[in-house]
Structures are given as structure tokens and as C-alpha cells.
């Protein structure tokens, strides 16, 4: 160690450097969205300008354009609508299934649970071609209901898996006591297990909702008209006219749509991770 600096100081410097470098690399695109959103076009499209700073006054033009001249708000609404309906369907199917597989079906349930989880590994990019035919057959082309029909295929498996973990962590004795007190098995599930699993259910709500906002392939395949887009497809496809990219508005749209989703996801992150790592962390 040079100049006899204490070891701990060096450790600290290295720590700050490593963390700083990674943070900058990972967060940079979002900083870039932020600064681009508020730059005037003359500033953006003058190559000599230092792009890291405002060379001309910041402007709200791009944000205004986004909210008044494009269907951005409509896309946000579509996404929220599909998200809420898919959350409802997912809860309705996954909560009872998870409880049943965790408690009522013994070893068989365990295997079925793993089977359901494995379907999470079958990706949209394998299913979108046949599903496009199914959607057409049902007359749901270019309808948000096509997405509502299809999105639970990936939200149910993971949610069931997450909830199975939660239900297993509830001591069996609790339900036994309730059943001794005269509740039926189903009654114990509704009146006892669901209320103490609120945090697990909330996790599934947030997880499902964020998965819906992040989906791209199905929305790209099934939805064609501008007014029926989700944010993930509307922004990249319909904020570009011909070859002209409205970079200011594009970046504003990306940032405005990303941040709330990122905040929500961040709050529940540790629980999602628990779902991915069930068993591997002791």
C-alpha cells in the first residue's frame, strides 16, 4: 500500500469506485431520458453541443407534445385497464390453486405445483404464433380483450408459485385450530388464511401488474390500431413517423411510464426474489 494509507481507507475508495461505476453504467440511460426530455430540438440536434448539459434553455415542449398531440394518455389508460383485469383474473385463479397445491393435495399437489411453475418457462415467443390464430378465431384481433385473455398464461404460473410459498409458511396448526373450532376447510381458507396472507396477495397484485406493463410480444402481435396500444408498444411504434424519431417526446414517454412501474416493483422486490429462489436460499 503506497504512502502507508490505512487499509480501510483503500477498501472504502475501491468500494466507492466500483459502486459508482456500476451505478452510472446501469442508470445512465434513464439519466439520458431525463435530460433529453427537457432539451429544445436545436440543442438536441446540434452535433457540436456538449450533450451532457443544457446548451439552450430547458423546455417543456416535448412533454406537452406527448400529452396533447399523441395518444400517450390513452396508452397509459389501456395499460392500466388491462393490468387491473388481469390482476383480478390472476387472483381468482391463482389464490385457490396455490392453497390447494400447498395444503390439500399432498405430494401430488407438490408435483402439480412444479408443473405449473415450469409452464412459466414456456415463453410468449414460442406461443405467439398459434395464439395469434386463436385470437383471430375468437374475433379478438386488435382488441385489448385479446391481451386480457392471454396475459394470465404467464401471470398465473408465477403467482401460483409465489403464493404456494406463502401458504406453506403459515403454520398448519393455525388452520387445524380453526377447524376444531367448527370452521370448514374452505371456511378456514377464506376467513383465516386469506386475511393473514394479505401481504403475499399484494405481492402477487404488484407482480402481475408490472408483468403486464412490461409485456411486448403479444401486444405487438395482436394489437394494430394506434388507439388500442399498450405503453410498451405504443411508444416505440407510434411516436415515430416514417423515419422521424421524436426523441424528446420518446424519452419523456419512456421515463414517465417507467418510473412508477420501477417504484412499485422496487417496493416488493425482496418478495419477488423469494419467489425466484424458493428452496435455493436457506
Amino acid at each position, binding site marked *: 500500500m503506497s504512502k502507508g494509507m490505512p487499509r480501510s481507507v483503500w477498501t472504502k475508495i475501491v*468500494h466507492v469506485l*466500483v*459502486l459508482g461505476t*456500476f*451505478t452510472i*453504467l*446501469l442508470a445512465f*440511460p434513464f439519466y439520458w431520458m431525463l435530460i*433529453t426530455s427537457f432539451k429544445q430540438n436545436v440543442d438536441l*440536434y446540434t*452535433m457540436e453541443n456538449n*450533450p451532457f448539459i443544457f446548451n439552450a434553455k430547458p423546455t417543456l415542449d416535448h412533454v406537452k407534445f406527448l400529452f396533447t398531440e399523441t395518444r400517450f394518455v390513452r396508452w397509459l389508460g389501456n395499460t392500466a385497464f388491462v393490468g387491473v383485469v388481469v390482476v383480478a383474473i390472476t387472483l381468482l385463479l391463482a389464490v*385457490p*390453486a396455490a392453497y390447494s*397445491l400447498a*395444503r*390439500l*393435495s399432498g405430494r401430488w399437489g407438490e408435483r*402439480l405445483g412444479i408443473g*405449473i411453475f*415450469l*409452464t412459466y*418457462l*414456456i*415463453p*410468449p*415467443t*414460442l*406461443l*405467439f*404464433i*398459434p395464439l395469434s*390464430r*386463436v385470437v383471430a378465431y375468437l374475433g379478438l384481433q386488435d382488441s385489448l380483450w385479446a391481451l386480457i385473455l392471454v396475459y*394470465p398464461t404467464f401471470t*398465473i404460473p408465477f403467482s401460483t408459485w409465489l403464493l404456494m410459498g406463502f401458504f406453506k409458511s403459515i403454520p*398448519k396448526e393455525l*388452520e*387445524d385450530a380453526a377447524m376444531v373450532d367448527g370452521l370448514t376447510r*374452505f371456511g378456514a381458507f377464506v376467513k383465516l388464511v386469506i386475511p393473514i396472507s394479505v401481504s403475499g396477495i399484494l405481492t402477487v397484485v404488484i407482480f402481475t401488474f408490472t408483468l403486464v406493463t*412490461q409485456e*411486448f*410480444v403479444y401486444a*405487438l402481435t395482436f394489437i394494430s390500431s394506434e388507439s388500442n396500444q399498450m405503453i*410498451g408498444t405504443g411508444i*416505440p411504434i407510434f411516436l415515430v413517423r416514417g423515419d422521424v424519431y421524436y*426523441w424528446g417526446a*420518446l*424519452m419523456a414517454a*419512456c421515463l414517465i*411510464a*417507467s418510473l412508477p412501474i*420501477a417504484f412499485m*416493483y*422496487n417496493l416488493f*422486490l425482496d418478495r419477488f426474489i423469494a419467489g*425466484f429462489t424458493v*428452496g*435455493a*436460499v436457506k
Partner: protein
Amino acid sequence: MAVTNNVARGKIKSIGAAQSPLLGAAMFSPAVLYIVLLVGGPFLLAIFYAFSDARIGNTEMHYVGLENFRSILQSPSFHVALRNSLIFTICSQIVVIVGANILAISLENTFRGRGLIRFLILLPWVAPIALGAIGWKWILDSIYSVITWVLVAAHIYKPFSAPMWLGEPSLAIASVLLVHSWRLMPFSTVILLAGRTAIPKDIPEAAAVDGAGFWRTQLQIVIPMMRPIISVAVLFGLIFTFTDMTVVYILTAGGPFDSTQTLPSLAFAFGIQGSDLAAGAAVSLFLVPVLVIIAYFMLRVAHRAEVN
């Protein structure tokens, strides 16, 4: 711990052990039925299409045997797509797992501002990837790229002579690789972090007392203990990258000259854009062997964890 628990459970033969198969079946069958109909059905349909001449806008189809596979295997863009899919998946996971281990070590202990740093680091994973990829498309723009600006300012390139990042095949491949690594590093980091916090603190401490340095403790004790969790991070990372079409579609749309096509994006190009459902389905079926291998290893990790 586990053993005593089991013994205790065995003694108190609880009512909970008396299972209710009928109620159980009634509760899980809606979900199972849904998955069978909308995952299992389409999956079989994909196989069916791959052996047919199904096209968009034509309800008739006929069995054509291996014709689709024959023409796909002869198409140069398929070979490129297969190669790219493997390159993107494997290379990005190597970058990710090295970076994620370093990041997880530096995030393990609490410090001021850790919450904020964690949020910033997580952004690539938690924000919709379609939107993150547009951010990169702007960063890698052919004229106004900030990277180009920095290189010109540093006199590495003369103005207007810098390469177009998404316009040359090798650079476009590197760009897609970069965005995939960027996207998955946060995911692996938080998984590894969860693994680290689960290791009892006294084990690395004891190693330190015994005179093992930082690197030795990490490489010989902590990382081997984290093998199952590292496998989980890698297996999910492999799946997410291998089956992804969004990054390529937005950054390059498979171009220039199909040089960044992957299996999923090629399936989309054939099946949806080209209306040739059969060819698209046949291409996407090439995902299956890799998925099966990954699923096998996942089950093994899960099984081992259960035995322990």
C-alpha cells in the same frame, strides 16, 4: 431444525394431514384448465403448424411433413439467428454473472444512500424493457449518439467518421449484447444478494480470523456456498435472454441485413410479418430443446435444495 420439526409434526398427527382431495381439485382445476387450454393447447398447435403450410389469411392447411424444417435449415438467416441466440445468451450471462457478483459484494453491507443506489441499479430490470431499449437506441443513434460525441471529443474519431453503432453487423451484435447484459445484471445482483444475506455471518468471519484474506474468503468459501443460488440466477438469466425478442426488435429490428436476428425475432419476421405461420412456428420450436435443458437443471437445483 428441520428434523426436530418433522418429529414434532409426526407426533401431533394433526387434522391438517387429513387431506381433502375433492375440495383440493375444485380449487386448483380452474387454474390448471386455463393453463392447459392457453399454454398447452397453443404449444401443441405450434408443433402442428410447424408440419403444415398454415398461413395468415388462409384457413385451410395441409400436412407437409418436414418441408418447413428443410427450408429453414437451408436459409442463411436461420443460421445467423441460431448463432446469435446462442452468442447473446451465453456471452451476456458471463458478463452478467461476473458483474452481479462484484455488485452483490459491494451492496452487501449497509451504508448511507444504499436504498437510492439499489433503486438506480435496479432500474434496467424493473422498467419495461421496450422502453429501456428505446433509451439505448437514442444513445446509439447514428448521428447524435452520445458515445460518438465523447469519442470525437476525446479525438479518437474525427467528426462524422465514427462508426454507426447499430448500422454495422459486428457493432450491432455488440450493442444487443450490451443491452441484454445491462438489462439482466440487476436481476442477478438481487438474487445473489439474497443468497449472500442467507449465509450465516460467522462463517466468513471465522475464515477471516483464521487468516484468510478477502479474496480467499470470497472465492473459496462464500461463492462455493452460493452455488445453488448462482445457478438459479444463471438459469433464469439464460431463459430471459434466450427467449427475448424485444431488445433486438427495438434496437435493430434484426438488421442490418438480418445480422442481429435471433430465433424469436426471426419467428416473428417469418410468422407474423411474412404471414407464414408454419415457418414461424418451426423456427420458434428450436427454442424448445434449450428450454428443456434449462428446466431440467432447474428441477435439479430445486430437488437438491429440498433434500438438504
